[in-house]
Each structure stands twice: as C-alpha cells, then as structure tokens.
C-alpha cells in the first residue's frame, strides 16, 4: 500500500473507532452473581485488574485481595490454606478485561461475588464490574481480615438483594439507568470520574431514590442509603464498566491505532490497541508520585494497580481533570497542573468528546481517542490521578498521586503494528 493510502486507511479506521467509542450507550440493567453472567468465568477462577499475571509475580496488594476472595468463596478456611491452594495451582487467574469486566485497584472478581450488569444499547454487548466496598480497609486494597469479609458478606446478602429488587423494577419501567447521562452531568458538577465520583454517586442515588421508597422496607432503605451515601466512590465502578463498554465497542477495528485498554495489575501496566486485537503490551508498573497520608512514604507503596485507567482511555479521569479543580490539592498539585494535564491529553488524542463537555475548559469536549502515533511522536504518555496502596496486604490506601505511564508499551505496540500491517 502506498504511504498516502495507508495514512488514509488509518485515519478512517481511527475515526470509526472514536465514533463507536463515544456513541456507545451503556445502561445499568441488572445485578447478578459473577459466576452466572460473566462469560467464561470458570468455577475455580478469579479475575483481577490489569494484564494477565501469575501468582509468583503478583504484588502484595493483589495477593491479599486474592487470598481474601478465596476465603470469601469458602474454598479455604484460613489464609494458610488459601495460599496452599494457589501455590498448588488449584486456582486459575485471568484478567477482568478478558471477560468483559473491570475492577478498581486489585479488581478481584470471583464467581460468588455480586456484580453490576451493564448493557450497551447500541450493540447489545455487556460489561461487568464489582461493587465498591467504600473507604478504609477493603479487599481492593489487599485487606482480608474479619471486618473486610464481614462487609463483603453483607454486600452479597443484603446490598445485592436490595439492588436486585430496585433494578428489576427500574429496568422494566425505564430500561435501566443510563450511565452516560449521569457521567456527563457529573463532569459538570466537579467530578473527573476517576478519583472524584461524589456527584456521580449522588446522581445515581437520585435515580434510585423513588424505587428505594417504593420497594424496600424502612430498615432495608436505611441500610442501602447509608451504605451508598457514606461511599463517595460508589459510582466509580459503574463509570469504569460504562467505559469498558465504550472501549470494547472501539476495539478490533482493522488499522486503528487507538488505545482501547490501559490497566495495571500491581506489577505491570498493560495496554491494548484497537487494530492489534487482544495482545497486551506491558512494562513494569511505576509507583505514583504524590502525597502520602501521615506515617507513610513512597517506600511503602505498591506499584500502580487497577483497571480504573479505563476512564482515561475513553476521555475521563486525567483527560477530564479540568472538570475537577479540587482533585488537584488531593494529589499534591496546583491549578496549573490542570491545564498541563489537559494539554498533554490533547496532544496525544485525536478528537474532543461529543458528550463529555467541561464548562471550565471553555465548554470543550474532553480529549478522547489516545493514538499511539501521537504518543511516540511527542514522547508524552497518558497520566492519571490515582490512589496509592500499601505494598503489604491488609493495610489499605496510604496516599494519592499522579502516575505517568511508561512509554515502552506504546513503543512496542507501534512496532508490533508495523509488523502486523507490514509497514
């Protein structure tokens, strides 16, 4: 193919890619047990955030979460037993991404965990994610003590039940909860939808309120309401699943150079490219640069972990930082970091989002459609605001900061692209 011809092919492939990404229309339609709905989730399989990884290579945070999940599933009665199971290779692991799923931080999903079921109205395809446990000690930070497991059991017994009742009615009456609409509004209310989800959580609550009143008893309503309102990150998982829907829509388009997944497993960070199929391109996960809670420092930090960078992949999070000035102080920055972050994303993306508009940024759409060509040309990789976990399982979040993705995965993706398309 001539140079002009290939450039045109890429241009139109990329155009289709971002259109499909943006036009995807994810709706929350149900909750169910992971094992019942997630494709190819085997009976002794545990899903995790980031690219595929074996136990030997896992970091402390991920290991802790997996051990906790094994206990939750009652596949073992003690941590020691759980470790033996793993070492004897009795448990299979795979990336959430390979099963239409995403999860924040350790992102561990096991068959008996309740998950949100998200359906894309455009393609009828699905995405799944777990329920967010809330602040403090949590499985997603690698904690697995009594407190954590008790809460997870309550979530499975009660939270799941309450949401099931509500969503069944909602889905029948309204077709479910439109997530894109909530996200667009949240962006205009101070959320960037990765590290700040307060507005999204509130808007979600508003949607389900009538159903809480109509279909739950007082005690149940109280429990549900208390849980959601004390967790400002409740909506994060839903944003992530919606983003996963959009990214999957944009995936597998021939010749496309657009990034359709960015994910970290606590040891490696991996990316996928639309035109390169399911191949992961990886590099060592960096330690985020930021501020630590009193008592902690970067020596204690687990390398970057979580599927939450699916948000940056579709024009949210770091790409939408201009929507959330208050996040800046939390990650140790200044107001001008916002402009720099936004400009950085503009330089590596191909379009402005049709639906995600930021008033503070002159009502421009967020930078969307990360192009590996632009990344290699400019030397700039995506950055994200993120939480920082302790590397020892069980402790939890120890800070927050900004992580700059390494360039190696993008470079390797470009080289693989050249081989694949015979450039």
């Amino acid at each position, binding site marked *: 193919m001539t140079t002009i011809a290939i450039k045109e092919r890429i241009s139109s492939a990329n155009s289709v890619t971002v259109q499909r990404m943006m036009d995807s229309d994810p709706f929350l339609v149900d909750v169910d047990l992971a094992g019942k709905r997630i494709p190819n989730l085997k009976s002794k399989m545990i899903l995790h955030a980031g690219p595929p990884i074996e136990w030997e290579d896992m970091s402390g945070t991920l290991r802790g979460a997996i051990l906790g999940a094994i206990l939750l599933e009652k596949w073992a009665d003690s941590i020691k037993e759980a470790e033996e199971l793993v070492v004897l290779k009795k448990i299979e692991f795979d990336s959430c991404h390979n099963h239409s799923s995403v999860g924040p931080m350790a992102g561990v999903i096991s068959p008996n965990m309740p998950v949100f079921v998200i359906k894309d109205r455009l393609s009828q395809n699905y995405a799944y994610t777990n329920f967010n446990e809330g602040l403090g000690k949590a499985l997603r930070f690698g904690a697995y003590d009594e407190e954590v497991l008790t809460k997870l059991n309550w979530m499975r017994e009660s939270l799941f039940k309450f949401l099931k009742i509500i969503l069944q009615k909602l889905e029948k009456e309204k077709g479910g909860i439109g997530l894109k609409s909530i996200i667009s509004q949240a962006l205009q209310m101070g959320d960037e939808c990765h590290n700040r989800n307060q507005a999204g959580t509130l808007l979600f609550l508003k949607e389900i309120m009538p159903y809480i009143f109509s279909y739950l008893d007082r005690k149940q309503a109280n429990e549900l309401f208390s849980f959601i309102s004390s967790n400002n990150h409740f909506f994060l998982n839903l944003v992530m699943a919606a983003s996963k829907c959009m990214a999957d829509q944009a995936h597998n388009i021939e010749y496309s150079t657009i990034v359709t997944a960015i994910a970290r497993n606590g040891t490696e960070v991996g990316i996928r490219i639309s035109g390169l199929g399911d191949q992961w391109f990886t590099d060592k996960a960096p330690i985020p640069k930021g501020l*630590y*809670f*009193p*008592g902690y420092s970067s020596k204690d930090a687990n390398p970057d972990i979580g599927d939450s960078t699916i948000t940056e992949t579709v024009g949210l999070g770091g790409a939408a930082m201009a929507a959330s000035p208050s996040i800046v102080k939390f990650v140790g920055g200044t107001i001008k970091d916002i*402009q*720099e972050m936004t400009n950085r994303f503009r330089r590596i993306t191909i379009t402005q989002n049709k639906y995600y508009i930021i008033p503070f940024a002159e009502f421009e759409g967020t930078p969307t459609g990360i192009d590996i060509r632009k990344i290699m040309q400019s030397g700039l990789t995506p950055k994200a605001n993120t939480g920082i976990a302790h590397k020892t399982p069980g402790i939890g979040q120890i800070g927050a900061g900004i992580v700059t993705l390494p360039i190696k995965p993008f470079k390797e993706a470009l080289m693989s692209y050249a081989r694949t398309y015979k450039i």
Partner: protein
Amino acid sequence: MMQFSQQLKDEQGVIDAAIVMGTDLNKNTLKNMDLLTEDGISATENDTLISINCQDENSLNNAVQKAEQLLVSDSAKAKNEFNDLPSALDYFSNANIASLSIPGQFVKEMAIELIKKQLHLFVFSDHVPLEDEIYLKNLALDNNVLLMGPEAGTSILNGTVFGFGNRVRKGSVGIIGASGTGIQESSTMLDLFGEGISHAIGVGGRDLRNDIGGMMTMKTMEIFENDPNTKAVLLVSKPVDDDVRNKIIDKINNFSKKNYVLCLVGDNENREDSDKIKFSKSIQISVLKIVKSINDDAYKKIKTIVGNQVNESIKLAESLSNDLNNEQKYVRGFFAGGTLCYESKIILEQMIGKVYSNLSSDDTYSIKGNVPSKENTLIDFGEEEFTSARPHPIIDPLLRKNRILEDANDPNVSVIIIDIICGINAAKNTMAFHAETIKQAIQTAKEQGRKLSVFTYICGTVKDVSEDELQMLTDSGAKLFTSNALMSFAAALVINKSDENLIKKIRAEFLEGELF
C-alpha cells in the same frame, strides 16, 4: 494539607508530624502514629489537627510556627511556571510579548504559534537557520508584530530590559540595533550625556543583509516614525550590504520627518552627512551626533568634556608607555561584547597595524580564541569556541579571567584592554570580580619586574554600577575609560607613539567628529 505534613517533617528536630482534618479516619491514623493527644480525640471533623512529635522544646516552637505559616501563606512557588507553551498561553491569555532563549533549531515551531497569537517576539537564541529567520520575519510582518532578533542580545521596551541591558533614562532617542553591546554602549552613553531612550530594538545581526533586506529594521523605523516620544533615531550596526543601506537611506529621505544617525562600525567609506542623515564609524561619535540633533546646547558642553578626556588619555598613554621595558610591545584585548571587540580592532588596526583576532576575516590574522595570544591580539569571548559549551561571558566571566591572568604572565605585553558589561543579567558582582582579577594581573607582572597597564571600559549607568564599585576598580590599578573607542585609542598610543596627523584622523573618525 498532606504537603504541609511533609514539609513539617523536614524541619529540624521533628520526629514525626501530621496536619489533618479531625475525621475519625484521620484520628485513627494519628493514633497508630502515636500522634493522637487528648485534644486530638475531642476534635471534630471540621477542626484542623496539627500534631508534632519533636526532639526538644525549641524544635517544637519552630515547627509550630512553620505549621502556622504553611496554613496561612499560599504556596506561590512555581505558580507561574509551566512545562509547555499551550498551558502557559491558556493561563496567561493576554500575553503580548514572548522571549525565546531556546536552541535555534527549535525556534521556528514555537515562534509560528506565538506570532499567530499576535505576540511580539524577542529572540535571544542563536543558530536559528537563515531560512527560518526569513520565513518568520515575513510571517511577523504579515501579522503586524515585531520579531526582535534572532541572536538579539538586547532590547529595551519602555524601560524594560530583555536579554542583557542597562537601566537607562527614558528619553527621546530610539535605537535600532543589529548588535547587543552596540545598543548597550550607545544607550548608556546617552544616559551619561543626560539624554535617554524611548526604546532600543534589537533586530538581530543578519537583518541588514541583502537576503533579509532589513525587514525588521524598516518595521522599527516605522514604529519610531509614529512614536511621538521618539525625536531622533540611532541605528547601530556593522557595515551593511549596499542594497539594504540604500533602501534605508531612501526610506529616511522620503518618508521620515525625524533625524537619523547611522552608526556603521567598520565602514570603509567616508560618507557625507546630510540634513536628515548623519554617518558614524564609532559608537561614541554616533551618540555625539544624535545628541547634537536633539539638543545642540548639551552637545556643545559634552563635546568639550569629551575633548578634554581625549587629551588626558593622550597624556596618560604617553606616561604609561614610558614605564614600559623594551620587551613590552603588544596589546591584548579580551571582550565580552562582539561589536566592541570589532570596533576596537578597527581602531587598533589603523593605529598600530594588523592584529590577530578570532573576528578576523583575513586568514593570515585569524586566530582561535582558545589558543595562546600572538603579538597584538583581540579576542571576542562571545564567539562560538567559547559559548558552545558555556554561558555567555557577560553572565560568566571565568574564561576571560583565566586569559587575563595568562597574558599578564607574558613578558611581551604592555597593556590589556577589557570591556566590563554591567546591568541586567550580567554576572552578579562582576565589578568586584574584575577588580580582583585586575589586581592579581598587575601584581603578577610587578613581581616579574614589569609595569602592566590594564584599561577598562565599563558599560553601565549609575543605576547599574555604584560609586563603591567604581572605586574598587580604580583601586585595583585599572584605568577607566568612558567609551570603548577611547580605551582602544589610548591603548594604541601606549604601544605606538602616533604622529599628529594620525591622531587627528582618529579623533575625527572615532572620538569627537568633524572638528578635528
């Protein structure tokens, strides 16, 4: 707030510290760190807790003070610094000038963006490719903005200095300079003579070549023409290509109501002055002529003073030459200002014969700056062989100091001449530094049984250089001159007793003007 905790922990004597809001979660964390006190326990979510564990009472008091400071003051450090241009433009959307001091090959891309945003440009960068300069200057004209440079060492706009420059009085002379130190000497001299400048615009060393055609010079001429504060215009440059020179002269004659002085350092021709246009081969004479054009009375007084200075320099030179031994034959000049070195070379060549220089176009007398001096030698320390690896000599005088001391050791040297550029962005304490160097140089020669003369031209106004600093330099043994031309003239006389006619010629062409 976590930033503050970090900063507190860095204080002397602090073992651990935290500044947090009094939420339950935070209180728990403090408890785990042994930082939770009675007060802390009873704090509410809206209270700010400052908890510090210190080695002793003193450090505690210090740390508490610091904590309060942190909570009150705004962290303004690096508020106005950005990592890329688009962010800076977003933040500072009504910027009207950009100053570029990045490597030359990167200037074009940045400049295009800035010109399109209607910013004037000051381009200090050197090694901007010629094609880029032509392209950019055309683009700038199309967009009605100024491009000062490239390789502009100096511009002074409304009294604000860009690059190197001096604190010069505001006044009615507009300066157009194809030379940074040319602008510096002429502007400071005007200030010394009681006059001042409206603006000094650097147009870059190549603007007056035929291939650029004087684009920015012409533009600046128009600006000065329309500026009510500018009464007369001084153009300072090395010799200009014929076509461009004629274009400028035509433009002045046909379109200008103001008086012009064209200072062409190194010009071979003797050009005739007209009503509107005066010519000059030295900076000193160009300043005298422009003062004459705006204030004849002041000119008369100044001319007398200058004449006296010249006479005294002649006497001084004679006396100094008598103190030389037979071996001392040569002058060495080490310059931070390229045009000053060049002017000096012109004068010396007329008075003592060929000089070796790294500015020589003549291969026989061309010498690199970083090899030992040969006979009469003048070196420009702003040239490539020095600045490729180090900052400009105006900022960093070390290389020149070493050379001064090296040549002070040379038994064949009679006089060393140097320019000391002061003012904005010059090395801090440059006067003290040079005084020390000169003292050492003279001492070295003395110990070896020689009288070494060191002449200085100090480029600076009273706002740049204090009385104390001048005294320091005099005390070092240096002889101070009020212009580069005068310093060079005096040095030549130390080397060679010149005949009356030559002295008259030099005074007429370089020092005082037509009356000689």
